[in-house]
């Protein structure tokens, strides 16, 4: 593809919600007025200093930000190359980066006078974060979750219930994250008057990809500041795992115009890209299509039917990717690679033993790539990996694979 490099990679999307050809507003007419209303409400909130101040206050005192930028000394020694830092978003309240976005959206929902919150969830982290914020503000919360995922992520289902949310199983199609998204959209179409749809990743119709990115960008802004303070310069590379891509976009976005910073997104290769259908790498194994309100890279067959993704991690097995990632891939600003279930599992175990950190299976994919490339980089190479979630929720999955009885 012959593309002209833009002056800035940080100006998107355009007024139609497009990043190049990706993004847009591919939704049923019933939702269009709501999406336009949301776009306006978000624009107003963004321009209102008191909104940002309120959000910052909750991020500091409720979520626990800033999250540390931690030098992973033993991992660095073990790999023998680049100096590895973890951005520790797993230390946030609720155990993952998802809460950053949820706090922003829930404050926006309150501003808009919406009393009923719906959300979709895959691994359950976004669902737990949404249930948490709804409990904090006394809002009704309904979380859609694929039936298969509810089985895989039982502890999170129970956490959501404890927090007062109603968890509704998505029983159609493949009964995973994409179907939970379909169900949430169906709910929204039926309850347009009072309902706010809190999307968990940088996908969906405009303005969601932009809005979720903005709320998650706190990760990258902090990282920049912390690295400058610690090392006196920017990192040389950033690595983050990608399902829909919200933690990655949050880390990457503030660095997109720092051309010397190498940026790498790691998709889930499941049982291997060669299996064609047993992975969740939308960029490596998919092509452009339209689903869930936006155009982006999707896993599908030759007739345009969506193929369910597979990954050991329920948070990564979405058959699409955020539209801004699709654009950054085409523009070659971000390199997209993948790691298999097996590689992620090895990284997971290594991290437990070397750093005393049980990572979620999602960032274990990013760590698996760090393990591949760090040894080849010089010792003064500064590499930041986004530790976007903790692994408590995954111990049952891992135990089963390792043959341990709990």
């Amino acid at each position, binding site marked *: 593809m012959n593309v002209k490099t833009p002056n800035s990679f940080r100006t998107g999307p355009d007024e*139609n919600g497009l990043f190049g050809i990706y993004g*847009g*507003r*591919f*939704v*049923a*007419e*019933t*939702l*269009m*007025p*709501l999406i336009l209303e949301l776009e306006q409400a978000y624009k107003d909130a963004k321009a209102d200093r008191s909104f940002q101040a309120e959000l910052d206050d909750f991020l500091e005192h409720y979520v626990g930000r800033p999250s540390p930028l931690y030098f992973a000394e033993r991992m660095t020694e073990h790999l023998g190359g680049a100096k590895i830092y973890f951005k520790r978003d797993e230390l946030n309240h609720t155990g993952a980066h998802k809460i950053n976005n949820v706090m922003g959206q829930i404050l926006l929902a309150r501003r808009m006078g919406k009393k009923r919150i719906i959300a979709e969830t895959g691994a359950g982290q976004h669902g737990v974060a949404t249930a948490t914020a709804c409990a904090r503000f006394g809002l009704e919360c309904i979380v859609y979750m694929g039936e298969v995922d509810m089985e895989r992520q039982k502890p999170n289902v129970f956490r959501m219930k404890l927090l007062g949310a109603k968890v509704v199983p998505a029983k*159609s*199609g493949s009964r995973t994250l*994409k*179907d939970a*998204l*379909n169900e949430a*959209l*169906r709910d929204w*179409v*039926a*309850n*347009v008057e009072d309902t706010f749809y809190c999307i968990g990743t940088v996908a969906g119709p405009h303005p969601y990809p932009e809005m979720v990115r903005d709320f998650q960008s706190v990760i990258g802004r902090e990282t920049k500041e912390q690295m400058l303070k610690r090392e006196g310069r920017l990192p040389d590379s950033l690595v983050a795992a990608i399902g829909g891509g919200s933690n990655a976009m949050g880390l990457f976005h503030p660095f997109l115009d720092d051309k010397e910073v190498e940026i790498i997104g790691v998709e889930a290769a499941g049982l291997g890209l060669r299996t064609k259908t047993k992975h969740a790498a939308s960029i490596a194994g998919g092509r452009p*299509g*339209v*689903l*869930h*309100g936006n*155009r982006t890279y*999707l896993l*599908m067959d*030759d*007739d*345009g*039917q*969506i193929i369910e993704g597979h990954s050991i991690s329920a948070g990564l097995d979405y058959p699409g990717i955020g539209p801004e990632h699709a654009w950054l891939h085409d523009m070659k600003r971000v390199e997209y690679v993948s790691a298999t279930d097996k590689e992620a599992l090895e990284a997971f175990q290594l991290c437990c033993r070397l750093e005393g950190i049980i990572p979620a299976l999602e960032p274990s994919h990013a760590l698996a790539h760090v393990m591949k490339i760090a040894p080849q980089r010089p010792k003064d190479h500064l590499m930041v990996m986004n530790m976007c979630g903790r692994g408590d929720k995954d111990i049952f999955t891992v135990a089963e694979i390792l043959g341990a009885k709990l």
Partner: protein
Amino acid sequence: MTTRIDRRFAALKQEGRAALVTFVTAGDPDYETSLKIITGLPKAGADVIEIGMPFTDPMADGPAIQAAGLRALAAGQTMKKTLKLIKEFRKADQDTPIVLMGYYNPIYVYGVPKFLKDAKAAGADGFIIVDLPPEEDGEFCIPALEAGMNFIRLATPTTDDHRAPTVFRNTSGFVYYVSVLGITGTKAPDLKSVKANVNRLRKHTPLPICVGFGVKSAEQARAIAKDADGVVVGSALVSAVEKSLTKAGKPTSKTAKAVHALVAEIAQGVRS
């Protein structure tokens, strides 16, 4: 230029009655049975036929139509086969308008220019593409209009007077008024609000207005036909297919008959 859709609505206006618009999913429960169902629709009383193009993720549809799409896909239905179905139908019927209804991704993957060319050659007349609002008209709506085909848009209870001009700007053929907030086939339409909304929308468009989502009986059809130019029945027909199947999901000798009987019953409602 007039299309089959324009001609059919003009003829019905002459007759002084509303149209019965029937929706079935292409390839449900399999290609052969689906062909039998569709070819028998005009005789049963259908004035316009909507054919659903199956999609794995039909986010605006309720359980009945979702299940129909998955049955069709499981039986091997593809976009090419859906067009072939229309071609077969056209051998015996040159007059009944056919509207293809579905989601954008399979069309996008097929390729818009090629799809328009093939659909027109097969004998389709118009399209309802659920996830293409006016904001995305450049994708498919404008090319379809340029190809001399109709692009039928859904108007909903959220289509207020401010929004309506945008929605109708590039709409042709007819307007499909979605009578309830929600997905297909789940709630019954509130007849009072249908009347008020149809009359309100008439101020914005000269096109015929058909009303659907949740119409299941001849009674409802009769009531709606008083105020609207057409009544759309979909989920009820698709459910009739489902109920006629064997436990293993195979069609029976009753499958096509069940659909045609229900169409005939509702047609009575529309015509009385």
